[in-house]
């Protein structure tokens, strides 16, 4: 079971700061970002990082926000404390939003601040002098300055530089170390440090993107076959698994297209592997026919749709929750499936083995909906939160040496006729023999078939058999609702409003609720839906029936979740907070929305995104 995550975080929070680094794509924002993140996490600080970038390799604007705290950080936050501007464009775009008490770091030779808001500390750096001949080390200086201002020891940076540059040789490490020192000292001498210092906690944390978490979860679940076609923002899963595949005995295939991917995954899954893929909406559109086949063949497969802004090619590097109805309607006809929308990076990790157990036991596809926000976004994870040795439950399978219960072939010998792959059992689940088992020969057919696998249209299309098989497949799912955790109300039960969302909005909702309480004394609670199919109709209905005001928060235009909630429960929400400009919600967007709604100003609140990237 997914471990409950700490959701009420405010009380033990002592520091909470955000560092942003902005520049052109290709200016190497990733490296300083990584260095900072790793240093924070090793100190035990929690963090959440979001990179606003563009579907361009070079030239586009990139703006990375890393927010850290000694308590869990579930989103990118509302405000910046430090901005490192790597080009003039960054300075021009964002200087205006820097709050009182914040600092802006830049190369004084290249960048000029215009219209600095009151109370912002400008920190011009003589980069040229500080880096000397090592012109590539400008970013190292910036990192050192940030660390100094945060009261983080230089040793931490030295460690990080060692790790990152050791492949390039001792000389590079040493040069960077020296430059870091100069930057650190320059900052100490010239700039005001923050009033707080970033603490060092007892336990280091891991830094993962959701895509890495998905890859890790897949490995933990025992995935042996991973096929994919690159597609932003899902490619990170492919890249993570590819990097570890050979060592761990996992086969990775980059296929000609997404149709090939899903069909290959079905083939490997039918053979008996746990097989998986990840893609984004456009790739998933191409997979839907084969997902339906996996439903008909009763072959378990797992597929992640990392949503990005649509429709069509849309905005490949921007986030959205716009594929819900595509997932619900994937493929023609009715077939059983699971659909799950994890709420965070750690949740992605832990949900994958769970989803595999479900799809193995219920012999159907398992679909996961995430989005660019949490899949490309980075967060710290407490290693203890990740269950690397999860229970593996493959359901009723027959391998060449039998199944574990019987330890030999239940149907024994070579009498293929005794075995019915699609036996019309009471549970609807039919024991699944993998190819290669003597005595269990059968055809898995995407045409409707009889219990033994023969096509119904190969004898006589028979409405009674057809009905039996439709009902058998559907019956499987009757118990599935008990197999997935019901959603729980987060917060007090008598709140003035309930925020309802699915997937990645959980983190921003948690924080908005805390802010509403602490700043505005408005008590709001949250119902976060993770399991979309099956849907806990009764639990959701009983929780929402006693809500004073239901506000649905989702990251798309048309209110796909609101309509789905209504289709399952009949419940019409009272109000809606939506965003469809490609950027994720920030906590104050929700706060403002709730206030506008409670104030009777609107039933549909669409915040304006202030950070222009």
């Amino acid at each position: 079971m997914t471990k409950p995550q700490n959701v009420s975080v405010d009380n033990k929070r002592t520091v909470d700061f955000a560092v942003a680094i902005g520049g052109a794509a290709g200016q190497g924002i990733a490296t300083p970002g990584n260095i900072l993140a790793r240093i924070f996490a090793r100190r035990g600080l929690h963090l959440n990082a979001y990179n606003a970038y563009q579907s361009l390799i070079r030239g586009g604007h990139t703006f990375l926000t890393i927010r850290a705290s000694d308590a869990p950080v579930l989103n990118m936050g509302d405000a910046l404390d430090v901005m490192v501007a790597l080009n003039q464009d960054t300075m021009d775009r964002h200087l205006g939003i820097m709050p009182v008490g914040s600092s802006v770091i830049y190369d004084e030779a290249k960048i000029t601040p215009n219209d600095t808001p009151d109370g912002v500390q400008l920190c011009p750096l003589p980069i040229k002098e500080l880096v000397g001949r090592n012109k590539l080390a400008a970013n190292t200086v910036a990192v050192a300055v940030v660390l100094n201002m945060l009261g983080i020891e230089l040793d931490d940076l030295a460690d990080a530089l060692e790790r990152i540059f050791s492949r390039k040789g001792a000389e590079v490490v040493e040069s960077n170390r020296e430059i870091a020192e100069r930057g650190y000292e320059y900052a100490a001498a010239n700039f005001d440090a923050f009033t707080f210092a970033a603490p060092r906690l007892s336990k280091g944390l891991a830094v993962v993107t959701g895509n890495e978490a998905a890859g890790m979860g897949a490995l933990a679940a025992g995935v042996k076959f991973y096929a994919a076609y690159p597609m932003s923002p899902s490619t990170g899963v492919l890249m993570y698994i590819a990097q570890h595949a050979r060592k761990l005995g996992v086969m990775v295939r980059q296929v000609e297209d997404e149709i090939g991917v899903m069909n290959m995954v079905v083939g490997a899954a039918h053979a008996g592997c746990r097989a998986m893929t990840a893609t984004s909406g456009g790739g998933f559109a191409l997979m839907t026919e084969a997902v339906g086949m996996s439903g008909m063949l009763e072959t378990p497969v797992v597929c992640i749709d990392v949503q990005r802004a649509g429709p069509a090619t849309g905005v490949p590097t921007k986030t959205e929750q716009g594929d819900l109805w595509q997932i619900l309607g994937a493929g023609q006809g009715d077939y059983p499936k699971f659909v799950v929308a994890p709420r965070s990076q750690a949740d992605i990790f832990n949900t994958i083995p769970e989803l595999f157990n479900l799809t193995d036991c219920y012999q159907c596809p398992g679909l996961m909906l995430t989005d660019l926000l949490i899949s490309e976004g980075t967060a710290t994870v407490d290693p203890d939160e990740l269950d690397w040795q999860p229970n593996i439950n493959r359901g009723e399978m027959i391998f060449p040496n039998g199944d574990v219960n019987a330890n030999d072939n239940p149907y024994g010998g070579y009498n293929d006729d005794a075995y019915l792959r699609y036996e019309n059992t009471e549970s609807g689940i039919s024991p699944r023999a993998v190819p290669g088992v003597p005595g269990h020969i059968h055809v898995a057919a995407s045409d409707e078939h009889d219990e033994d696998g023969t096509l119904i249209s190969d004898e006589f299309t028979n409405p009674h058999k057809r009905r039996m098989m439709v009902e058998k497949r559907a019956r499987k799912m009757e118990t599935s609702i008990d197999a997935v955790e019901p959603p729980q109300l987060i917060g007090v039960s008598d709140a003035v409003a309930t925020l309802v969302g699915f997937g990645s909005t959980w983190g921003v909702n948690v924080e908005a609720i805390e802010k509403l309480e602490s700043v505005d004394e408005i008590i709001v609670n949250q119902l976060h839906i993770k399991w979309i199919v099956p849907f806990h109709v009764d639990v959701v209905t009983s929780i929402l029936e006693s809500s004073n005001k239901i506000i649905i928060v989702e990251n798309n235009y048309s209110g796909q979740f609101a309509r789905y909630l209504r289709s399952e429960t009949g419940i019409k929400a009272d109000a809606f907070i939506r965003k469809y400009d490609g950027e994720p919600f920030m906590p104050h967007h929700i706060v403002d929305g709730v206030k506008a709604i409670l104030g009777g100003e609107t039933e549909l609140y669409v915040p304006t995104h202030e950070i222009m990237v």
Partner: protein
Amino acid sequence: MTITATPISKQFTGNQVVSLDTIPLSNVEVTRDSFKGKIDPDWCPGCGDFGVLTAMQKALSELGKQPHQVITISGIGCSSNLPGFINTYGMHTLHGRALAVATGMKMANHEMTVMVTGGDGDGFGIGGNHLMHTMRRNVDLTYVVMDNQIYGLTTGQTSPTSRLGHQTKSTPEGNIENPINPVPLAMVGGATFVARAFSGQQAHLVDILKQAINHTGFSIVDVFSPCVTYNKDNTYKWFKSRVRKLEDENHDPTDFHAALDKGYEWGEEIPIGVFWKREDLPALHQLEPVLDEGGPLAYRNLGLSKEQSDQLMSEMM
């Protein structure tokens, strides 16, 4: 998570079959009848596909394959109904997708003999992209195309191998698109065994299928398999008077240019036989270090050791 479905087995933790070879075989001798499917084919009387089915059954039994060691994977079409009529493991997948599914199957269990069967529409029409890429990957599959130059199951529309001028239900005034010639295409596409055969010439077809199955790498056999119901152009008679065996004329299947020229011959005479073959390219599964040892992926233990997961975790710290 508690799954309350029917009783459930748990993770395999040992004692696993790591190789198909270790499974004790039935002591019943394998004959053609061992490959007879559960039901009789429902093709139109006289359909060319009967001959292909029989030849496959003969080839597999003559090669001494055990039925459970073989899987036959098809797409959708009259021809693609074949897996239901042969006693091997089988998959009847989606129209055009058999090769992709079969690649997944082969990679997950490289000890199985994987046969792929289907029609010209299935393979060269909608399935064309998978064909091109499966060929270049040299996946060790035996692909038998029942090429009737028509869409049979959908009642007679033009296919990628329909000749220019062919009047079909979708081209009532004659097809104006140049047909595909599977032999040269497969050669250039990277198939390492390329043959053509005729359903009406059993012995020859059986021989070619045996060679194709024995070949390690991607083999394709384009079989003329007349559709007696919808194709009145390319009939048994039409082929019978034209086909000419390459084996009768000392064709060297390692001579690329000669093979191409013969592949293009199409008129009063049409060569059949093995056009092209190369043994120097390893098949995909042979190139995959993951398969070097440990038997089929599908039969291996799941999950990571503590050591492995600690290593993964430490990379993220």
